[in-house]
């Protein structure tokens, strides 16, 4: 078992013929990811990277029974691409596209409420399940099948945690980038929930950053759980000073949240081991898991 995807997941790529889509799908397929088709309006009926291309998500789902999609569509059309996948009832939608207008995603979120699709992202590096495949832009060759679940808001920082857990031999059960935008689909809490339920995941690394309330909410959620797994967290930006602010609303909307201190305090209260330097993620997780055995 793993989270979000497994070896039976049938994946399509929206924007497969583009530069980014081609680059990443080619690598993912070479590493064994089960990509069964692509979507690019106007190129239906052709083939790309050895899989059929369709004009719409509905056509692709009809022909391939796809149940997951990864979206590499430019920002102006990305929200429509997500909604097209929602309408076609694709269960898992991973949106890599960054720089999507936030109000577009606000509308997408409203539509997701009444659907059973899960959106990961936008502005997400995607999902990687070692031994199964990658949806998104995570680099190949740094993963190792193993027992650590990684959930992150920042993309490049994710690879840092992957690298450390690969080098110390723990490996990863799955790695999920929930996206760095202010409004995203799957939350860190929901991802933690999946990891807690997953048998292969023995420990969890949570990577957060200053701003927003995501880590505080994840901490609140964790504190109330009966099932416990070791969780190691790192909050990026502890030593970077706050830049220019515009007004008071951003500060008072969720008062007392958003800073590194508030996130670290909330996580520690929930029993999470918070490391102050990102270099300690891997070894701290190894120590915690050693004590378990």
């Amino acid at each position: 078992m793993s989270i979000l995807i497994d070896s039976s997941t049938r994946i399509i790529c929206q924007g497969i013929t583009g530069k980014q889509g081609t680059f990443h799908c080619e690598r993912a397929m070479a590493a064994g990811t089960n990509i069964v088709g692509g979507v690019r309006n106007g190129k239906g009926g052709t083939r790309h990277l050895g899989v059929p291309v369709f004009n719409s998500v509905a056509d692709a789902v009809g022909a391939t029974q796809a149940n997951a999609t990864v979206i590499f569509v430019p920002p102006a059309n990305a929200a429509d691409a997500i909604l097209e996948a929602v309408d076609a009832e694709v269960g898992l939608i991973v949106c890599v596209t960054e720089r999507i207008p936030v109000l577009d995603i606000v509308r997408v979120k409203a539509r997701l409420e009444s659907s059973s699709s899960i959106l990961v992202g936008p502005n997400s590096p995607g999902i990687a399940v070692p031994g199964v495949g990658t949806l998104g832009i995570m680099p190949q060759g740094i993963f190792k099948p193993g027992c650590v679940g990684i959930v992150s808001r920042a993309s490049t920082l994710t690879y840092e945690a992957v690298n450390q857990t690969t080098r110390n031999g723990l490996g990863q059960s799955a790695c999920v980038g929930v996206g760095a935008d202010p409004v995203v689909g799957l939350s860190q809490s929901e991802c933690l929930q999946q990891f807690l339920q997953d048998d292969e995941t023995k420990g969890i690394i949570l990577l957060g950053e200053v701003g927003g309330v995501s880590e505080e909410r994840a901490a609140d959620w964790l504190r109330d759980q009966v099932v416990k797994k070791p969780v190691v967290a790192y909050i990026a930006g502890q030593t970077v000073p706050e830049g220019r602010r515009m007004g008071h609303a951003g500060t008072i909307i969720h008062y007392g949240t958003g800073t590194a201190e508030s996130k670290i305090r909330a996580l520690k209260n929930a029993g999470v081991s918070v490391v102050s330097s990102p270099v300690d993620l891997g070894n701290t997780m190894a120590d915690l898991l050693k004590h378990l055995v």
Partner: protein
Amino acid sequence: MHIFEYQAKELMRESGIPVPRGLLATTESRAVEAAGELGEGPWVVKAQVHAGGRAQGYFLNDRHVCGVVFAKTALEVGSAARSMLGSVLVTPQTAAQGEQVHSVYIESAVKTPVQLFLAMLVDGESGQIACLASARGGEEIETAVREDPHLLIKTSLGSGEPVLAQSLDFMGSQLGLNDEAKAALGQLINRLHALFIEKDLSLIEINPLGVRENGSVIALDARITADDNALYRQSRLAALGVRSEIGSVERIAAQNGFNFVRLDGDVGTFSSGAGLAMATVDALTHIGARPANFLDIPPVLEVSRVKQAFLLLLSDERVRCLFVNVFGAGIMRCDTIADGLLLAHLEKPITIPVVMRLAGTNAELAASRLERSGLPVELVPDLAAGASRIAELQSNPVESGATSGGWRRLLKSLAGSKGVGAS
């Protein structure tokens, strides 16, 4: 993207939102003239910067003047404008080095018995548009809400559909307004909401929002932030995008799309991806090293932009060593980073120690190019080793620099690099 108060008020005026009469001035004489055109005083002279807290701020050259000055005579308007124009204003909301004032906004002073706080923004938690209001308008709003959270009224306005009448009624009642004021506030929120959506805004803040005896409302201050990601479809807002960075380094960084923050130390840092860039600064600080900056460059294919980023760091005279921490992934490849450094060196010879951690896509290729170049770059296997090495260099500085033999090897290695042709 932030816009100035006078621009925000112009947008509001066009949307039928009441604002005081005002005129912009970039010289003292124009300020005096503007006051005359607005009619009888008193007036308010307001420094135009992309930050709030102006009334609590001060000017670097004259700490007795703040960013909002009440003037009873045209002479006082002129004197306030003279103090502000060209000066640097520091407020609780600016970065530490402040912002330079290039224009002042002169308004007829409006006094109202009631001053509210009103804001609209996207709530990341709910993924909806939220409206915040408080009966305690003014600069003390943060303290007031911290001490008594009930002073803040928060309502969701949904996902872009028209605002529900009951939400408006709820806000008005919670603020303790009478029926006239409630109706005026309701109309105002509806218009702000339409503006918010039409212009792809991420923040509207009116603090204070004046309420007169007759119940009419007027936006005494205005702050608007537009969604950078939507500027492609908001050409009018995009044209207002003036950067107001103080330092030339910040300005060049902004022009290149680099995310740059100046810090107090002497280690230049270079990274890609905001999370990893923050982690780099955190790791250095944690071990006792002192970063001179935070730098996050977007994933790029062009080696010329990477070169530009290195030149930017090298132009900082405080920087005594450089730490590069890049995880190549997606379109960002480590060899582009290496080539960028080598090109920067050709333009401005590097005489300080450079420690590089390159992992991910094409890390080996980058390492072999750097090795062949003869440039004294130290490659480290991971972030921990890099941070330790930097801390060591800081406590025990060594001289470094490329030899003439190194130069020849560098040119040769660059000739074999694809990246140079692409620049």
